């Protein structure tokens, strides 16, 4: 595998970075943008992440128009906030009717426009507008998007029959395009945007991952989904690859061995693309100088941050708390690649060992619960999986069976169109999730939720559906109506937020905590996974890593109000009961 260098920079005018939180997507996008700008090309760097830390990196306030970055000629940056866009969009839809329709009616409209679909569509709208706005684009040689649109938004906007139904004939089944109504004049823009994304001479999709089994699996999934939609010009960047420097340090050797093993079983979907790596750096890439040096392979002199000797609570403290408080439902939440499934498995294993009957389930499409437990049978633990694909298929079958009792061919065609909407997956997964909670009442349930925004979509859905239940004429399963009150009961439900001791995962986890609080869910613990801080090492690289972690551990201590525990990085992937037990920390001290 080659190091990513100047000669590998893609030459398409549009670069999209995709990858899960914590893989270093923003660092790579910024560093590459700086490198290209340094060559004299005019670069526009765009983030559509509401938790974007571009402002922190550049130490500048950004807005939704290009702002010149101080200290780098030719580099401009822009921050798009999809939630703000959704808010504006909602106002644009409802505003004209204030005073013309009664308040209760306006409220009903607003509720309908508060779903995840609206946020996603509003974000895509902003993004498509930028992608096709010649007055902006023509000023730049390269436009770098620090995030890719998800496959399902693109799919929604590509439903040509739905569009024509909606536009030409909206007196019958208008399909699930309610939130799109206000975007109708932009139909051409979407078409152009989608064409531009598919054109290999125009767009390169940069898949960012870590040399670790699960981030690689997730990269493969994103790659596949976007490939199917037509974005086929993809490049794989493996970030944080540690080269063997013939160190005698046990931990460093183990670190290299783990990444080598992960890369040996790289998913086949990724093999067809060019693959490059960017080297592991033990410090955070939080300044222009560091990012420049990283991309161009220069040495960096870095300041040592003093170790303030903070005591780091071990994960067993959290287990003891669960044993005492006995929540019935435990969530592990956090962005992809932070190790939620491992943490969920550990909690299930340890509570089961204390005699509690446990049920462990996941909504993560890249789930690997069996992998986590290995071949070990664990007493008191049952395991299940909510597979979005299976749930959608079940839901579709159920709907069609019911619909065909009363509908003709044309009617079914409308139903079919609605079923192709992104809402269907949410609903199907949501119902499956409610059923698990309902059906395992005699066990303590641990839910390992899917990465990305999925978790929050589920909660939004819960809220929205709960409100609707009172007036719906459909058959509401008790599992659904019982769910939200249970989730909001702090003695019933406890959330563990999993993060890594690094900038982006901590920022994202902080935002997640705020969202959860807004949704009325209480966060019990923060779990800092894969820390090096409590490990004895002589590796100069890893010692620097420990120093860099200090800042983030302190940050987490404060944000979590001291309700945090840490799990050390382990030499071998935590598989099987023995491997999971090593996460306690005492074995490697």
């Amino acid at each position, binding site marked *: 595998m080659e190091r990513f260098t100047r000669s590998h920079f893609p030459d398409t005018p549009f670069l999209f970075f995709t990858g899960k939180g914590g893989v270093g997507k923003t660092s790579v996008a910024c560093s590459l943008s700086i490198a290209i700008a340094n060559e004299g090309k005019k670069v526009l760097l765009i983030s559509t992440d509401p938790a974007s830390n571009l402002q922190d990196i550049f130490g500048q306030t950004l807005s939704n128009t290009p702002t010149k970055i101080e200290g780098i000629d030719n580099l401009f940056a822009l921050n798009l906030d999809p939630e703000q866009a959704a808010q504006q969009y909602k106002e644009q*839809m*409802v505003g*004209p*009717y204030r005073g013309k*329709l*009664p308040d*209760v*009616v306006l409220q*009903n*409209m607003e509720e*309908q*426009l508060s*779903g995840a*679909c609206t946020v996603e569509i509003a974000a895509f709208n902003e993004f498509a507008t930028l992608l096709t706005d010649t007055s902006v684009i023509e000023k730049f040689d390269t436009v770098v998007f620090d995030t890719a649109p998800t496959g399902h938004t693109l799919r929604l906007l590509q*439903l040509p029959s739905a569009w024509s139904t909606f536009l030409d004939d*909206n*007196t*019958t*089944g*208008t*399909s*699930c*395009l*309610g*939130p799109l*109504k206000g975007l109708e004049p932009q139909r051409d823009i979407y078409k152009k945007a989608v064409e531009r994304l598919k054109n290999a001479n125009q767009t390169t999709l940069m898949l960012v991952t870590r040399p670790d089994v699960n981030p690689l699996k997730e990269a493969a999934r994103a790659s596949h989904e976007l490939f199917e939609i037509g974005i086929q010009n993809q490049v794989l960047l493996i970030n944080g690859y540690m080269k063997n420097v013939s160190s005698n340090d046990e931990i460093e050797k183990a670190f290299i061995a783990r990444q080598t093993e992960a890369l040996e079983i790289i998913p086949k979907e990724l093999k067809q693309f060019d693959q490059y790596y960017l080297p592991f750096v033990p410090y955070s890439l939080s300044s222009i100088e560091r990012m420049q040096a990283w991309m161009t392979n220069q040495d960096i002199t870095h300041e040592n941050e003093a170790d303030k000797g903070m005591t780091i609570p071990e994960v067993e403290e959290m287990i003891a708390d669960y044993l005492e408080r006995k929540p019935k439902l435990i969530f592990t939440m956090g962005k992809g690649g932070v190790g939620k499934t491992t943490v969920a498995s550990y909690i299930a294993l340890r509570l089961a060992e204390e005699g509690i009957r446990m049920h462990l389930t996941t909504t993560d499409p890249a789930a690997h619960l069996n992998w986590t437990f290995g071949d070990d049978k664990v007493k008191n633990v049952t395991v299940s999986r909510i597979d979005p694909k299976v749930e959608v298929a079940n839901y*579709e079958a*159920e*709907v*069609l069976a*019911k*619909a*065909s009792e*009363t*509908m*003709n*061919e*044309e*009617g*079914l*065609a*409308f*139903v*079919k169109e*609605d*079923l*192709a*909407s992104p*809402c*269907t997956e949410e*609903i199907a997964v949501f119902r499956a999730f409610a059923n698990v909670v309902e059906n395992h009442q005699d066990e303590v349930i641990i839910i390992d939720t899917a990465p990305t925004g999925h978790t929050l979509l589920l909660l939004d859905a819960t809220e929205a*559906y709960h409100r*609707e*239940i009172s007036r*719906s*004429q*459909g058959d*509401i*399963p008790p599992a*659904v109506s019982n769910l939200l009150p249970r989730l909001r009961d702090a003695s019933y439900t406890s959330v563990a937020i999993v993060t890594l001791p690094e900038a982006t995962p901590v920022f994202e986890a902080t935002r997640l905590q705020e969202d959860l609080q807004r949704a009325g869910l209480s966060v019990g613990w923060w779990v800092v996974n894969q820390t090096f801080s409590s490990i004895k090492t002589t590796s100069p690289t890893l010692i620097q890593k420990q120093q860099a972690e200090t800042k983030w551990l302190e940050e987490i201590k404060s944000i979590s109000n001291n309700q945090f525990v840490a799990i050390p990085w382990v030499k071998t992937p935590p598989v099987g009961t023995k491997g999971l037990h090593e996460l306690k920390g005492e074995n490697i001290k």
Partner: protein
Amino acid sequence: MKKIHIYEPAMCCSTGLCGPSIDPELLRMSFVMNNLKKTDMEAERFNLTNEPNAFVENEAINQLLMSEGMDALPATFVDGELLCKGKYPTNAQFSQWSGLTEEELLQKPKVRLSLKGDA
């Protein structure tokens, strides 16, 4: 030509698939409205999400909302006269207005559609 206008609350989709469960009433409505299109009647549904303007322009529905709020929806007007509110009309009512038999209103599908691979 007879006109049937149905004013509905804000919904994501008119088939009701996006609700917490499948709403058989909404499925029935999609179906009935489709069959009514084959007659020479004007049969229209106005969803508050998609067509709020219809709720402003039609004085009768506007008045109804002002006095009774959301509970009045769905509201059905036949040739401008409010004949059903707070629920969808029955098949018998549709039959009476349209001249179609209830069987014709509830025609069975001719083919089953495959969901996979052709979306």
